[in-house]
């Protein structure tokens, strides 16, 4: 599939689903969160699945984006035009520093994962102790009774849906373009055999860093969106380990070898678990189904739903 075709397909599917649910706020909310988690999973997997860098601290970048927006608007009344780039800039800078340290000292595999987790946890506890960021209580962002497009405040949900869809499509578009360029080839080569890749002229540290920074920037973008949509941020929601683990789960279920695999994972699991919760009679029934499904899929479809589908389709 050419990159253009992937992007067109994803866009088409999103538009169809969007058209089908746009009349219903409840379904739109599910749609928005599916796109939100889908984007996060895709950019997480750019690192884990495509470059071989498993991060368990990605919530840190989401948190930087979300807190930039919440702090900017609650304390200074700044517009998203300022806070979104600020959040992304902070996240990219943080990824640069963390990446420089980790790659300089040769951290890989579980050790890289746990180092990123440690950075994320440090951020979590620091925010929990910082008065101006609302400590553990988080920050309530002002909500107006009228729409303020300049502050991304809308009564209806469709503007939010369009924003997150744009972010998602942009992420897939950038990702696909990169996958077909030198960068994408280098990432996959690094994932597989760093030593061989370096011998073939790949500057391992620079390209890993580039991947980390891109992924962090997109995560912050999602975080910024989250803050504007939910109008509330707290450490547990946007900085907790659970969020990082969610990205991992969607990627595994969707398929880590494909750029858009994690999107499939999110598109299956997010609505599935929400609908199960909303319609099942037994409280917690969804947890049981979700947990069992996760374990079974991870065991039986190691290449993920998308990977399985592609291999069936090719043969």
């Amino acid at each position, binding site marked *: 599939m050419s990159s253009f075709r992937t992007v067109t397909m994803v866009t088409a599917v999103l538009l169809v689903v969007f058209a089908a649910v746009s009349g219903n706020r409840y379904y739109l909310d599910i749609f928005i969160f599916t796109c939100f988690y889908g984007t996060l999973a895709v950019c997480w997997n750019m690192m884990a699945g495509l470059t071989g860098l498993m991060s368990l601290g990605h919530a840190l970048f989401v948190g930087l984006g979300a807190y930039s927006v919440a702090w900017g608007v609650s304390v200074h009344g700044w517009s998203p035009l300022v806070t979104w780039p600020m959040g992304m800039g902070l996240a990219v800078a943080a990824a640069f520093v963390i990446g420089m340290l980790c790659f300089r000292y040769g951290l890989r595999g579980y050790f890289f994962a746990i180092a990123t987790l440690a950075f994320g946890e440090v951020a979590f506890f620091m925010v929990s102790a910082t008065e101006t960021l609302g400590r553990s209580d988080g920050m309530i962002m002002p909500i107006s009774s009228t729409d303020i497009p300049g502050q991304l405040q809308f009564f209806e949900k469709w503007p939010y849906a369009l924003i997150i869809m744009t972010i998602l499509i942009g992420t897939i578009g950038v990702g696909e373009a990169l996958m077909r*360029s030198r960068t994408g*080839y280098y990432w996959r*080569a690094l994932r597989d*055999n760093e030593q*061989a890749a*370096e011998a*073939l002229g790949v500057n391992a540290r620079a390209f890993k860093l580039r991947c980390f920074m891109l992924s962090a920037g997109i995560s912050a973008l999602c975080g910024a969106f989250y803050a504007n949509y939910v109008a509330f941020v707290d450490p547990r929601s946007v900085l907790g380990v659970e969020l990082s683990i969610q990205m991992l789960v969607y990627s595994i279920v969707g398929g880590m070898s494909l750029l858009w695999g994690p999107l499939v994972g999110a598109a299956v699991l997010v609505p599935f678990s929400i609908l199960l919760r909303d319609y099942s009679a037994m409280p917690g029934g969804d947890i049981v189904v979700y947990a069992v499904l996760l374990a079974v899929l991870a065991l039986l479809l190691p290449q993920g739903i998308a990977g399985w589908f592609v291999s069936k389709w090719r043969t």
Partner: protein
Amino acid sequence: MTPLLEVQGLSKSFGGLHALSDVSFDVAAGEIFAVIGPNGAGKTTLFNCLAGAAAPTSGTIRLGGERIDGRAPHEICHRGLARTFQLVKPFRGMTVLENVKVAAFSRHPSAKQATTAAQAVLDRVGMAELAAVDAETLNVAQLRQLEIARALATQPQLLLLDEMLAGLTATESAAMCERIRQLPREGIAVIVVEHSIPVVTSLCSRAVVLCFGKVLRRGATREVIADPRVQEAYLGNAQT
């Protein structure tokens, strides 16, 4: 004329273990040079130092007159030194062409040009018809060819080949030797690590013999092979 590669007083130790001590030799442009020695003599460590995968403890390495010791592998690659690995592992999930493309990107940043260059290399090594094949399905001989194709795609002046004949049949070996012999004509000097004495004698004009990390003998291949110390080192090794 300065030699293409100049190694002087190269040493490498891991903790207390001296993998290489005071190794010196040089390789001229357009030459096929052999590094021989029993197992554990330090041949792979030498390659790692030359290619930048390991930093030497002391000594200098010059490529085309410029020092490359301690440089990162990708920089050394850009300066025109390519290597192959003893254990060949293609990049998974990529076709043969894509594998070569990874290497071609080092000279051609645009995807289009890299594809053209990679295809040209595949033509050159006679793998054009395998271009679209999933690299994981190749057999040993094809994997070795792919390994050479990848190295060539980085457009090296000097190519390090690590045991390229191991596990190949006689016919495959002969074809591979023929391939190696052509490299100097394409302007590429070669260093081979090889066990088979007949192959070394037929391919290489000069050789260096390593034993326990030290240079045992250096010079024209025939003279080196005839050295009784070298014989002993090899025989001693063969008996164990």
